[in-house]
């Protein structure tokens, strides 16, 4: 049985889709079978970020409404054999998702794949609650700023209340993924520091993704950042986060804080 991960945040624009694609590709890279499901019905983006927008024929809503088989709707990634995408519908809205339909699709996907990654829409309404409904693990994507942190806090509360696991009295595993982190701005006080965010949200940290042009560039060429440029700083941070998701214990480095040799020399001179 595969594991179901929901990538969620409450707030929009913090990097849920980017992170879903990057983590999915990173997990598939080591040979695991991965499917990323876009739950943002009506505002689908994942197909663009994965570079599969011209290959969408059937989508999640078609499958739920019985108009297509799951195997017809799944799109295999051109770069990685074991990476699949289940796109959302662009012409429908979130009311087209039914709890029963979502449950059937997720159950079926779990049988075939090692990882089912649910890319949640923003907000706390139907789309978001259905995306988190059957998750075993939640990745809460947060930017180091107050509104994102508060929305994440709200989402964590919902994860503990409204998921199927929570209703069975079990606890859903929650991880924090801090994205768009800029150590210089955190240092200047323009952004929250890592410790501040951790103190407020009090869930384990799974990775810190530095703010980088590489992420935008990757989105625009239609590739997860972990495939577009595997050596870039954000890609390496996503690879590490994926290994932690799979259970490995790795120390977390705060980007920009391990100063290079120049920084050290400069620091000494100044002292």
């Amino acid at each position, binding site marked *: 049985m595969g594991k179901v991960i929901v990538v969620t945040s409450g707030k929009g624009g913090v990097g849920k889709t980017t992170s879903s694609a990057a983590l999915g590709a990173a997990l598939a890279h080591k040979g695991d079978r991965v499917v990323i499901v876009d739950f943002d019905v009506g505002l689908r983006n994942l197909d663009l970020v994965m570079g599969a927008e011209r290959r969408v024929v059937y989508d999640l809503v078609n499958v739920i409404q019985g108009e297509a088989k799951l195997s017809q709707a799944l799109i295999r990634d051109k770069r990685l054999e074991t990476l699949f995408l289940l796109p959302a519908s662009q012409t429908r809205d979130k009311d087209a998702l039914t709890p029963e339909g979502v449950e059937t699709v997720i159950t079926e996907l779990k049988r075939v794949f090692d990882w089912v990654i649910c890319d949640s829409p923003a907000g706390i309404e139907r789309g978001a609650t259905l995306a988190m409904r059957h998750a075993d693990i939640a990745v809460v994507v947060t930017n180091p700023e107050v509104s994102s942190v*508060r929305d994440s*806090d709200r989402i964590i509360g919902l994860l503990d209340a*409204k998921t199927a696991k929570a209703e069975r009295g079990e606890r859903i595993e929650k991880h924090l993924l801090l994205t768009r982190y800029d150590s210089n701005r955190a240092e200047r006080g323009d952004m929250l520091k890592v410790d501040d965010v951790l103190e*407020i949200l009090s869930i384990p940290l799974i990775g810190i993704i530095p703010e980088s042009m590489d992420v935008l560039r990757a989105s625009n060429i239609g590739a997860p950042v972990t495939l577009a440029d595997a050596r870039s700083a954000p890609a390496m941070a996503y690879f590490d986060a994926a290994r932690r998701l799979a259970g490995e214990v790795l120390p977390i480095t705060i980007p920009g804080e391990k100063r290079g040799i120049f920084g050290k020399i400069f620091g000494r001179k100044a002292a």
Partner: protein
Amino acid sequence: MTKVLTDARSIRIKGRSFLAVVLSPDLPFDDWLARLDDLAARSAGFFLGRPVVLDVTDLPIDRAQLKELLAEFSQRNVSIMGIEGARPSILGQGMPPALKGGRPVSDEAVAKEPVIELQNNPADSKSAVVESRQPLQSIIIREPVRSGQSVIFPEGDVTVIGSVASGAEVIAGGSVHIYGTLRGRAMAGSVGNASARIFCRKMEAELLAIDGIYKMAEDMAPSLRGKPVQLWLEGDTIMAETLI
């Protein structure tokens, strides 16, 4: 035709008690409403979606005045669910029903079967609703209270081992103890207990209240921010000092 009188499925009628906010206006209403507006302005949305009971005991008003007052409330989006202490003569058509038998919840007789409610916003149906077996005077929440969640415990003290997030609230009939950072709202003595206190390990609160007396973040001394603090009531003033 004979009517089947015993349908297999009967209608279930249950009694349930809820905690309502009671407003007791005094005359002249204009002044009182101005003060209400001031409170509402500083604590936006406080009355939204909350059951509010209007207490008009001993107020020398007539039906027209009451009607006017109710109109003022509806203008402010405060929906009155019932009127307490009104002479039958001043109640009219289209007014909220008269309520009787309201008791402050600190009353021992009420505390027979306390219910611990750890509730999310109305929209979030679940969240643990734990029913206790014997009379309890305190509850302990072992995890952080997240944004959007409320802990409401009119029967006694609430202890939170963890932080109370911005946008979360803890309402206790007794004292509130937060072993973490208090960023949201804390209301102690919510049902009339002036000796209730609020304790927290780190003060960043949005709003504090003891026995219905409010204090907003901007009214608080900046020196208390981020410190371990206790608050109590002296007369009609909330007092605060750092702990240790």
